Every structure is written in C-alpha cells, then in structure tokens.
C-alpha cells in the first residue's frame, strides 16, 4: 500500500508538469500511468504551442492580451475571460521554461524560437518543433521527471477514487504487470488523464483517450462542465482519422473540393484555410453534404504539393510519413484525402484556474479538466499550452494545499472499502449472463455519438441518440467479462474503461440536447444562432447513480475583458 502526499493520475504533459511543480514545492509526489509517460497521447500533438513571444516578424507587436482575445473569440465567448488571460500570460514563461529544459523547438536564423500562423489567430504565435511538437515537449518533460527522480508507477491502471468524508484521499489501481489491485493513499490527487475522444467513432485520439479520469471524478459526484462542446478537427486522414496537423494549413496548404476549388473562400473569405477549427470543419462537411466531396464521396483534399519537397521535409516531415504509411499517399506528389474527425474534448472536470475541483483534495489539469479557457471551440496550439500552464498551476495548488494544512488529515479510512468495491465490481462483471457482446456495444455507442452528436446537430437526431445511449447502458448489464486472469488483462481494463465511457458520452449527449443554440463546435440546424441571453453560461452535469441522464445545472460565464460579438473570419 504505497503512500505519497500527492498522486498524479496520468503521465502526459499535464500530469508530468504537475508532478514536477509539486515536487519543487516540496511535496512527495508519485505518477500513476496506464502507459509509460513517453507513450502518452500528448506526444501525438503535431503543429505547435501558442505563446505571444513576438518572434515572428509579422507578429512583433503580439501580446498576451491579443492572444487572450483570439482565444476568447475562438471560444465563441464561452471561455472564462480571466482564465484565458491567465493562460496566455503564463504562456510566455512556460515556453521559455520548456526551452530551457531542452525542448528542441525549430529556430529562426537569429536563433530564436520559430512561430507559425495557426487557425483563428490574429498573429503567427504558434511555436513548433517541425510537426512533432507534442512528441518533443512530452519527451522533454519525461526527461525532467527522470532528472528529478520522481516516482513513477508505470502500467498501473487507476480505477477508482478513495473519498473520505468528501475529501479525495487516494486511488485504487490495477497493477497491470504483476496483477492485483492496490490502494494508494494520499492527501491529494491530480487527474491528468486526457480526453474522451474514443467515445466517438471517428477520432484522431489514441486508443487510451477514453475519458477515464473524467468518469472517475464524475462517478464520485464531481460535475463535468461543458461536455457538449466537442472539437472536430478539419483534417483527419480519411480512412484512419489520424491527425494531419493544422500546421499543414499554417504553412500554406489548401483545402480543395472535387472541382479543385479552394472552397474556404465561401465560408471565411479573410482567414481562408486558417479559420478556426469549428468553422473549417463545418465548411468541409457542408461541401461533402452538398455533393462536392472528391468523387462525390465523404472527403475532400488537403493539398500541400505547391509547398514543395524541401519545405515539407523541413516543416512537415511527420505529416508526410503519416500520409504515406497510413493513407498510401505521398503529399509531395498527391493531395491528401481528409475529413473531419473528433479531436478534442473542450469540456471536462470542472476546475478553477488552479485545477481545484469541487471536491477537496481532487484536482484536474489538461484535457480531462475544464477551466474553462477553450469555451465552445479551442484554437489550435492552445491545448499543448493548457497542459503545461494548468499542469503547473494544479501541481502548485495541490502542493500549497497539502503543505499549508493546519491540521493533519489523519489516516485514510475508506481505502479498504474502495478496494473491495472495485473487486466486487469485477466479480459482478464476470458473473453477468453474457448474452450481450461488450465490444459490439462499445462500437455501437461510438457510431451513435458520431452520427447523433457530430458536426451538425438537431433535436430529433439528438433525442434518438440519448435513447440509444440509455438503451446501450441497459444492454451493457448483460455483457460479461470474459477473461479473469491477473496479469495484463486487457478485457478487464477495456470493460472498466467502457463503464465510464458510456456515462461520459451520456453527459455530452444530455448537455447538447438541452442547449437550444449554436455556439462554437455545438452547431444546431434547428437553432442556428448563438443565444447569449439564454445560453452564455456553462453546463454542469452531475452523475445520477440511478443510471439515468445527468442532472444539469448552469453557471454564468466570467466576462470582463471583451464584450461578446459576432464571430467573423
């Protein structure tokens, strides 16, 4: 039964950054991760990370305020404005710190960090390392955790929170390598488990982006915020949905329909291919719906040919490799078939700017959390930024709370109970009748989410979608755990994951159905306008143990910097 002052669940960028900060503050911290931290999904991020360094000659008068404005406008005014400004202000030192720790950013001739234009940004402020920025940032932080000898429990699957008298006191985790469950007791827990992309059929996300951390917090009574806002990336590879970075368009790539037309001229005449993701993705989808997909099919082209082999080798080498390996297309010579794919969960565990949730002792950072800085639509380059900024802040806040506590919390009381609950859940799963196939249900859910809560939404389709989810939840009770071995039991991990995924999906669906407006990524064909009077507010979804849809509450958006206005690009 390992004891630490602070447990960080998840070893991606947010979790690693949180752990480093907490350790620097003097707290005994440990990271629990389902995969080696270097394998986390943060590493799949490609195009870059935003900060108003003003290194690009075209952006010499950039500032955190301008970055905040772009972020807020991009969010369709659902971002909490002070939080957005906090992020963009912290951004500049955060990037320099990553550089000081060794991150290999691409460089200008004068040796400063290169910055490229990105969607929805008034200035070229996206710092990058070729098109593998996430990989480079992630490995930099992995290196720093080794340097600091931060304790890492690798290939431990966290399955439940330990909550004593309303305070989060640790987790129960499955030891994948040795088998068995263990109780990790602590004075605080930071969730940094990433997004829930796998709840959708077509997603750019990794296989482990299942919303596990959000589900655990949700099941423990912590609300999920703004879950209905789901980002669809404009350019997923057609057959595999693997990400083609926004950097492709930042470097000058075109989007073309079957007539070879740069159709973005009709949707965002000024920004063209560099409109924000929600608008660009819907424009592509509209072309497809109206029959202008390539060969009338459901994809369009991302054309990089005019950039030339040399520029592709310098700026977009990973993109070229991915297109060749996974689509059989060499972007030097051929346009790349792409279509929108789920990419990012704007919503997540409700937190403040220091990662604190409504449950004392529980914190969240990165994609599993929701501060909120992305509102209804995240700008490209702001998610990597969010991880290092809010990871640091959550680590610092957790450490301060632990070290500043006047009276000790005392021994953990309910650890045994939580462990027993996990074991009885497993026993129950194994004892089910087994008339349903759990993996078939999982695929049905993912298809339903994409079909009913995709780029365009309406009342009837969403209502039917909620009914499907509720029905799947009933059928799930008849799906059985088929393998009960102790070591590397994927059947058990994936079953436990799915029990959370379906509830996270239901939170997304329920929030979407009720919100009778179009805002950012939430685009309704029956309510096409933004409705600030009714809906300039955050959704909070509370889990209902009876299995029904969540209880929804609302809270106002924090404004104060910029008056909401119509978004035009």
């Amino acid at each position: 039964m390992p004891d630490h002052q602070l447990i960080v669940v998840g070893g991606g960028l947010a979790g690693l950054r949180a752990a480093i900060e907490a350790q620097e503050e003097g707290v005994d911290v440990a990271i629990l991760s389902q995969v080696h931290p270097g394998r986390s999904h943060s590493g799949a991020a490609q195009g870059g990370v935003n900060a108003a360094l003003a290194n690009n000659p075209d952006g010499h008068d950039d500032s955190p305020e301008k970055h905040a404005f772009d972020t807020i406008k991009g969010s369709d005014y659902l971002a909490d404005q002070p939080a957005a400004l906090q992020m963009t202000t912290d951004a500049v030192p955060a990037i320099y710190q990553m550089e000081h720790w060794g991150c290999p950013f691409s460089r200008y001739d004068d040796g400063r960090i290169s910055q490229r234009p990105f969607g929805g940004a008034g200035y070229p402020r996206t710092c990058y390392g070729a098109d593998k920025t996430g990989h480079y940032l992630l490995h930099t932080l992995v290196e720093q955790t080794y340097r600091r000898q931060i304790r890492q429990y690798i290939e431990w699957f966290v399955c439940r929170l330990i909550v004593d008298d309303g305070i989060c006191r640790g987790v129960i985790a499955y030891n994948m390598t040795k088998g068995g469950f263990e109780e990790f007791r602590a004075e605080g827990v930071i969730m940094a488990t990433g997004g829930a992309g796998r709840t959708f059929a077509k997603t750019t996300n990794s296989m482990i982006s299942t919303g596990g951390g959000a589900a655990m917090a949700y099941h423990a009574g912590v609300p999920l915020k703004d879950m209905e806002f789901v980002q669809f990336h404009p350019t997923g590879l057609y057959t595999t949905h693997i990400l083609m970075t926004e950097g492709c368009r930042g470097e000058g790539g075109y989007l073309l329909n079957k007539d070879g037309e740069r159709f973005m001229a009709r949707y965002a005449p000024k920004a063209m291919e560099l409109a924000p993701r929600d608008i660009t993705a819907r424009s592509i989808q509209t072309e497809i719906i109206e029959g202008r997909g390539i060969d009338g099919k459901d994809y369009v082209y991302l054309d990089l040919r005019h950039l030339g082999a040399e520029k592709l080798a310098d700026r977009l080498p990973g993109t070229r490799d991915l297109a060749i390996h996974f689509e059989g297309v060499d972007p030097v010579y051929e346009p790349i078939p792409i279509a929108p794919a789920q990419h990012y969960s704007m919503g997540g565990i409700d937190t403040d700017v220091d990662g604190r949730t409504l449950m004392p002792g529980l914190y969240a950072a990165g994609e599993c959390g929701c501060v909120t800085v992305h509102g209804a639509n995240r700008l490209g380059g702001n998610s990597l930024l969010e991880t290092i900024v809010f990871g640091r802040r959550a680590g610092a806040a957790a450490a301060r709370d632990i070290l500043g506590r006047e009276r000790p919390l005392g021994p953990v009381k309910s650890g045994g109970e939580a462990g027993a609950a996990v074991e009885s859940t497993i026993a129950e799963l194994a004892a089910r009748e087994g008339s349903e196939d759990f993996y078939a249900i999982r695929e049905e859910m993912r298809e339903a989410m994409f079909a009913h809560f995709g780029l365009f939404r309406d009342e009837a389709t969403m209502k039917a979608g909620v009914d499907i989810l509720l029905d799947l939840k009933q059928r799930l009770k008849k799906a059985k755990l088929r393998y009960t071995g102790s070591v590397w039991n994927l059947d058990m991990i994936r079953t436990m994951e799915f029990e959370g995924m379906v509830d996270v999906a239901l939170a997304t669906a329920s929030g979407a159905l009720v919100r009778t407006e179009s805002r950012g990524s939430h685009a309704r064909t029956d309510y096409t306008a933004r409705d600030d009077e009714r809906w300039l507010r955050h959704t909070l979804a509370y889990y209902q143990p009876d299995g029904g849809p969540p209880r929804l509450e609302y809270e106002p958006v924090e404004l104060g910097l910029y008056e909401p206005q119509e978004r035009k690009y």
Partner: protein
Amino acid sequence: MADITFHVRRFDPASGEPPHYEDFVVSVEGSMTVLEALFAIQEQQDGSLAFRYCCRSSICGSCAMYINGRYRLACQTNVLHMGVPRVTVEPLPHVPVVRDLVWDMDDFFEKYESIKPWLIRNSKLPDTEVTQSPEERHKLNMPIDCILCAACYSSCPSVWGEEHFLGPAALLKAYRFEVDSRDEAGKERLPTWDNERGVYRCHTITNCIEACPKELSPTEGIQWLKGSAVRRRLLGRKK
C-alpha cells in the same frame, strides 16, 4: 478482403507452461493494420490476448513487435501490403516477456535513465530562450525522433551478448544531448557512456538501423560519441 491467419506467440510465465503459438483467422480489408487485427482477435476471439497499444499512429512507441521476422510497429504495418496469407506475430525477441506480446521494459528504461537523458545547463539562464542556430538545431533532427520503442535494443547482437551494454536507444539519447549546442554537461555525462557498458560495445553491426521503424540511425550517433570521447581524451576538446 482476405482471410489472414495470425500465428501469435502466447506465453504466460506464471502458468508454468512453455511458450506456444496459436492461430487466429481474421477477415482483413483495406487499411487494416496488424494492431487492428490484434484488437479484432482480443475482442472477438480471445479476450486473454495481451499486447501494448496507445497512439495507433507510430509516434508513441508502444507496439514494436517482431512481425513475420521483421521489427515493426504493429500500428504502422498494413496487413494486406505484406502480401502473405499468414502473419507471425511475436514479442520483441531477446528481451524478457511479461505475457504474450508484452515485454519487460525495466532494463531498457534503467539504461535510458543511466545516461542522464536531460539537458544539462550550468550557466545562468536568460530571461528568454537560449538561442540556437537552425544549423545547430538541424543536428538534433535525427535523434529527437526516437520513440523509445526498443526495436533497436532488441535487434542488437551486442545487447544479446552483454546484458550490461546500454544499447542503441540509450546511446542515441546520449548523442541527442551531447550534440545539442545548448548542453553544458562538459564531462558530467561522459562517464555514463564512455565506459565498458557504453559506446565501445557497439561493433557497427547496424541491425539497429534496419530495425528502426522511424528510419533513424543509432549507429551514426554512437560513432559520433566514440569520436567525441577520443577528441576529449586525447585532444582535450570539449565535444
């Protein structure tokens, strides 16, 4: 669409049974990868199958395996492109197996850690970035793309023969920092790789280059380190 037989090595050390192979037939179409086929087997045929996975887009390094006698990432390997009706899937050879296709990473990451895989700076840091010219940055292009999948490590005969040899991946990481214009390790990192466990055990067999799914060249890095060690020892140079 084609029915492909996956001949998969199964092993559970706890069972006391020796390793064995099992055949699974999967209907394969279009772009299906070996990783997707393994999921199809785990979901539809045998829930006990164990393998690593994460990004499914060749950047996380989880799913390096030995597939039809070659080192490959399962996620990057299109089944039909192999053009054979039978695909043998085995864990990385020459490393201990935890279960089925999952191998024990402990030694691999212990060696990684031993070379001090982080940027070492001694002088005062500026308020902004430490500058680096594009030419200096260019030298990092190859080694920073390593995904630590360990295909090279598993393929290296010098690792097979000498369990303490650091192996290609750890040494490539050492090279990544030694060659970085911002690194000020001086002699701090040198003893970690300029020793009997380090670069001199590389006999330029170059299996690592052939094995690397990212087409990197650990050998090149190791040879640079050897030269650097000589330059430092005999000529008193800094790198």
